């Protein structure tokens, strides 16, 4: 599978005007790649993940192209996108655990979902059970109600259901945030497992937790204020990040072993700009320790070495 996103712009409608949540994003995802999409709240990563599959009432598609396996996705048309969902592109949305209908047995819900996609549940039943066993769930979980499962179990259930039809691209939106530490690891490793067994070709994993992405993602993309800041293979990103924001972000993560008295970590002073009227030029300029005159002009997102792209005048 291959995904090319070109200059995607998606805004949110509000009373006060358009919030430019996603303002010109261009990147590729290769076959078999797990791309981590990281950033702080309001940077647009959730908007990006969601707009690839469904643009809801509050969002407004403004510009850009999305091409999946050579076919252009009509993302601005919710109905036209229907035939791509679950088959070609699938999502595990945020709060998926609470999205399970509490009054329906899980097996029934899966059957209805599969039938609505015009596939036979009977055909898929065997595969479904195999996958449940794979993630450590017993097949009799299909006979239970969602309330009987723990958070981690529900999350794994939702993962199995979202990938049952073997989509080319899976988007995982903050799937580990609401979980305990012990379940987080199981869920994150399950994602990799799915890719390794070709249930899914490629993934975009959206989260604010960079350390999880370090464990499972092949490439890391960092977003800031609606635009891409840097994209690189994970190891390169951790060892030698080029964008000042990425550097500050990584250095603000407390690892086990780092103590306040010995090494005082520093955050990033200030806060992200308002996306209603974003400033001209580089959006990180106000908080950047390396800002200089040229930053008043917006830096393009360019490749500085193979597979490593940055939007910063100092880096490129």
């Amino acid at each position, binding site marked *: 599978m291959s995904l090319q996103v070109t200059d995607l712009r998606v805004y949110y409608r509000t009373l006060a005007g358009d919030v430019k949540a996603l303002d010109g994003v261009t990147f590729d995802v290769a076959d078999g790649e797990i791309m981590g999409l990281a950033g*702080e*709240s309001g940077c647009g990563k959730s908007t990006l993940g969601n707009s690839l599959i469904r643009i809801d009432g509050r969002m407004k598609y403004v510009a850009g192209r999305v091409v999946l396996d050579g076919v252009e996705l009509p993302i601005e048309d919710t109905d036209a996108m229907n035939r791509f969902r679950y088959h070609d592109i699938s999502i595990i949305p945020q709060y998926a655990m609470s999205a399970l209908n509490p009054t329906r047995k899980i097996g029934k819900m899966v059957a209805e979902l599969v039938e609505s996609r015009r596939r036979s549940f009977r055909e898929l039943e065997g595969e479904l059970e195999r996958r449940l*066993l*794979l*993630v*450590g769930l017993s097949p009799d979980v299909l006979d239970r109600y969602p309330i009987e499962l723990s*958070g981690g179990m529900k999350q794994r259930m939702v993962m199995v259901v979202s990938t049952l039809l073997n989509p080319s691209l899976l988007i995982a939106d903050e799937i580990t945030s609401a979980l*305990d*530490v*012990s379940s*987080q*690891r*199981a869920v*994150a*490793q*399950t994602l990799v*497992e799915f890719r390794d067994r070709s249930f899914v070709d490629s993934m975009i994993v959206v989260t*604010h*937790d*960079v*350390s*999880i992405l*370090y*464990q499972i993602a092949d490439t890391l993309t960092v977003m800031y204020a609606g635009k891409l800041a840097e994209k690189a293979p994970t190891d390169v990103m*951790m060892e030698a990040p080029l964008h000042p924001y990425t550097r*500050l*972000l*990584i250095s*603000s*993560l*407390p*690892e*086990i*072993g*780092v*103590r*306040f008295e010995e090494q*005082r*970590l*520093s*955050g*990033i*002073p200030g*806060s992200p700009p308002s996306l209603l009227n974003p400033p001209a030029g580089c959006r990180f300029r106000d908080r950047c320790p390396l800002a200089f005159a040229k930053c008043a002009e917006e830096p393009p997102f360019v490749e500085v070495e193979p597979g490593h792209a940055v939007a910063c005048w100092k880096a490129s």
Partner: protein
Amino acid sequence: MLALDRVSKTYRVGLLGGQELRAVRDVSFDLHAGEVVSLIGESGSGKSTIGKMILRLLAVNGGSIALDDVDVSGLRGSELRAYYRRVQGVFQDPYSSCNPIFKVDHLFSVLRDVYFPGLGEAEWRQRQTASLEAVNLEPGQVLHKYPHQLSGGQLQRLLIARALILETEFLVADEIISMLDASTRIDVLNLLGDLKVSGLGILFITHDLSLGNYISERTVILRQGRIVEMGATAKVFGNPLHPYTKMLLASVPHLHDRWGKEGEVAAAWAAAAAAAASEPCLYHAAFPAGSERPGVARPALATIEPDHLVGCCRADGEGAC
């Protein structure tokens, strides 16, 4: 010193309240001025319940909580108000902690009415400014705003300033940074570190081990309402004794250190469970079954080395393992 002694909390659930749900069992630890104690546990471990019991928002069913040897459960009226002068709390969701229909200076004016009724305007303003500056906020920039107009980090710092204006001695910080962004977290965390240095005693409740390790002198690991391991942070993290602690540490995603590839996820979980079962239980090595003396309650934890205690390795800690 804030001392918890064999504190328990039991809820009655089920039809006609027939069943018992033990949220907290037999928890004992101390909090001194100028130190941070991390209370680490996953959801359902009872950590928030302990925080609320310290803040008198929930009643204690068993055991006692004492401030300087005075039991806090009997306090009423002006004594309770005096207690709140010395012990305060900050909660997880900054937006839920502030009444959305009032500007944020309402937080302070409530305190003024209760604790500083006779104070002159100038003096009050001075106090307010001092406490806001202690958290790196500018009064002119935040006090006249509504909660939704400020960022999560600013609100949490404001809520800490609220505690500081009372000259509080102990702070219960219940997951105060889990809803903040990575870059803001560090600022608030560093603020807690500075306050600790200036003498504040902090109970840092969290599920995030790396944060606990960063900021605290002592760590308490909580599981399903009981303490499984407790001691100096360096010892608990450096030499974890309890299988649960070990499992937690193994699950934390480290930077610069990848998880091993263990084949099928299901098999990995089974292997971890089996490994835990085969290790000897250190608690029962110290207190073997049959060693109970009549009339004397066995301590909940066994001391393995100075400032490092551990509980029974069995999942529910009942009976022999």
